[in-house]
């Protein structure tokens, strides 16, 4: 009798808790979307209706694609309480190496595309592995190892390309870089189609989200970030999980490098040496992932990247020049994390 009562109570509380969590989750998503909509409307007014044109929205998505893919990989690393500073340079290096590879092999069409992508992924994975080894074996801070990799990758990409973009000989990459998904269908409906890179991004976001939230590996990533020693004593292969997060981050950088190379029809050593890495980290943090580790979501990262992308787009539309854009972006990042922290404190009290 008593056991049945306990059981009933537990089940009841579980459903309640689940409901609460679901509600909290959807409140957040709704708040994020709501905020974006409000901003969008305001901006639309300010930009005299040009922001909400379908073409411009697609444009925003296209612009955030590369940064968002970097940020997705970075999310894994940051949840383990690490950081990957090398992702920007790896975009450049993988772009250059893939372009040189594509120009040197006698392949064409889909086999060429797949082979080139595989070379890039292998390079990104290898760089991630090198990032991880000192972190895993010697417990060195990832800030240092990935800083070193950032410099090495940047130097290598300039050295290999002699500082100039490497133009692709084959036109086979154009569809990947600038083509549209189901283009004719969308055109017949008088809609702008979804650019292929955007599809790549969405697939990566969904795939990585499932990997993080629903698999054993994902659970271990959180456990590692929450308490590494407890995870180790629970039998988690800490070395493997840690290595894998850097490998994933490196591979995401390679995918971004691949798409950018396809977009420009060349692999340039300059593509990832600007603010790419910093903006990826900003997207992760704005998306609610804790730099202390143990907490975070891929979906949040996507919204973080979207917010930053919208901001840039809007400022361009209403004619704010690039120096001011940086100031605004910095203020928005600060504001976003402050609001998130206040919201958490409020929820804890309530």
């Amino acid at each position, binding site marked *: 009798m008593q*056991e049945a009562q*306990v*059981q009933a109570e*537990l*089940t009841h*509380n*579980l459903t*309640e*808790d*689940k409901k609460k*969590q679901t509600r909290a989750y959807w409140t957040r998503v709704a708040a994020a979307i709501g905020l974006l909509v409000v901003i969008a409307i305001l901006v639309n007014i300010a930009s005299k209706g040009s922001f909400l044109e379908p073409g411009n929205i697609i444009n925003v998505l296209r612009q955030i694609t590369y940064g968002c893919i970097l940020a997705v990989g970075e999310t894994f690393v940051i949840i383990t309480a690490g950081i990957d500073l090398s992702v920007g340079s790896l975009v450049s290096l993988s772009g250059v190496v893939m372009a040189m590879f594509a120009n040197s092999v006698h392949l064409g069409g889909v086999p060429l595309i797949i082979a080139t992508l595989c070379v890039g992924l292998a390079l990104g994975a290898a760089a991630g592995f090198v990032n991880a080894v000192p972190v895993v074996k010697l417990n060195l801070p990832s800030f240092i190892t990935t800083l070193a990799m950032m410099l090495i990758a940047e130097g290598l990409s300039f050295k290999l390309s002699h500082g100039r973009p490497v133009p692709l000989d084959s036109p086979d990459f154009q569809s990947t870089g600038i083509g549209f998904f189901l283009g004719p269908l969308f055109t017949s409906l008088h809609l702008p189609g979804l650019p292929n890179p955007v599809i790549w991004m969405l697939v990566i976001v969904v795939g990585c989200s*499932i990997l993080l939230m*629903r*698999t*054993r590996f994902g*659970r*271990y990533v*959180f*456990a590692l970030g*929450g*308490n590494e*020693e*407890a*995870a*180790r*004593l*629970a*039998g*988690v*292969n800490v070395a493997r999980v840690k290595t894998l997060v850097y490998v994933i981050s490196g591979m995401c950088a390679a995918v971004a490098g691949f798409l950018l190379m396809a977009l420009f029809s060349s692999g340039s050593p300059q593509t990832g040496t600007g603010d790419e890495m910093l903006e990826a980290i900003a997207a992760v943090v704005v998306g609610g992932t804790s730099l202390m580790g*143990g*907490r975070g979501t891929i979906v949040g990262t996507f919204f973080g990247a979207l917010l930053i992308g919208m901001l840039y787009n809007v400022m361009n539309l209403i004619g704010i020049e690039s120096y001011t854009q940086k100031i605004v972006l910095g203020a928005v990042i600060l504001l976003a994390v402050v609001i998130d922290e206040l919201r958490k404190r409020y929820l804890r*009290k*309530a």
Partner: protein
Amino acid sequence: MRDIGKSFPGVRALDGVTLDLHSGEVLALVGENGAGKSTLMKILAGAQPADSGEILIDGKPAAITSPRAAEELGIGMIYQEFNLVPSLNAIDNIVLGYEPRRGPFIDERGARERATGVFGELGITLPLNVETSQLSVAQQQMIEIAKVLSRHARIIVMDEPSAALTDREIDRLFEIIKTLKAKGAGIIYISHRLEELPRIADRVTVMRDGRAIETRSIGDFPPDEIVRAMVGRRLDSHFPELPAVAPDAPVMLSVRGLSRPPMVNGVSFQVRRGEIVGLAGLVGAGRTEIVRAIAGADIAKSGEVDIEGNVLRARSPRDGISAGIAFITEDRKAQGLVLGMSVRENVTLAHLGQFVNRDLLLNRAKEEDVTEQYIEELRIRTPSPEQTVGNLSGGNQQKVVLAKWLLGKAKVFLFDEPTRGIDIGAKAEIYNLMVKLSQGGAAIVMVSSELPEVLGMSHRIMVIRGGQIVRELSRAEATPDVVIAAATGAAA
């Protein structure tokens, strides 16, 4: 403290508590976990505000609005987990926040004089120029005491000061407390160890369910009555009957010549099916290191471990787990749990493989079912499996750790201080669970610094000193004097 009240969402933590402390006395504050001791002390120390009631110091109402205000009113708090900066030395820690200055610079000599002055008063010697992280727990505690004293504390609160100390260190602590008493300080001494109260306390206040139930002078408050006041009912003996080990029971765990210098030096013993073996010894004797080496948490330099006759060469905890070892660590917060994760996620962490579907995704419904089963079976007090473990009380956190290891159906259980810092009720439940495990055919090794626990819960006792087994005692032979004599190296 008069009529102190405090509520948290859904809980009335303190329900009108009144407490008096005289100068030059030690008031012991006892009660089960969750009785409200810590909350009351946090209010006194200014770490949390009270909802109602007032605090009088020397008869005058005191406004304790912050930790700093409390310090200035002469209230010193020594928490169980110390508040030292591990990378600073003793002197820097003592003057932290109150550094003597010479112009814009810290007056190093003044700081040193202040620290040595306090240590001199207390009659303590310890290395002053070493990072405190390099010092023993007892030495760190001395620094904490010196720190509050250097701030002229007249009301000193100590939260479980003896929990991590050896018997000899406790003697030393008690001497220091007597010195403080003689200087006219009032001391509030929180402890789960009732047996030490007659040695140190003048009066005892028992708290239960957010109230001060009873206060008496120690002379007419015998331990069994204290326990009764704490739990609200009489506990005859909190150790369950140990079932006898069958004489022909097979050996489950065999350790031969296990070494990991300097803390483990050639340890050999066997544990049979259904047997509970206690490892006794002083803190620092190498007991924890022995079980860590068996479990694979540390890699042994030499020696052999067999589980049911199969050689285990554990290079990592993972190897130990797959060989059937469950290792319940001494520090549940640092090693046993991921505090930010839910009860469910912690329970399933070590055996997630059981919850992976064919499609490689985790089966969350199954995780929930299993977790609920354990919540019920172990009576874990949590609103639901989704509660964050960090929000549970110590005893319930320990039960979550146990659930995690019960899930794996291990053959050998290594318990390191299984009941440290948890209340009597939860202790009894953990003892019953150990008996149940041994009846179910497990072999159990238990490390404990609580002598009654080792004596009451072991079929056999190994006394450890210097990383070696110095004495093996049957249950009948083991008396407190014999064990202590062997552990300290006094001839017996």
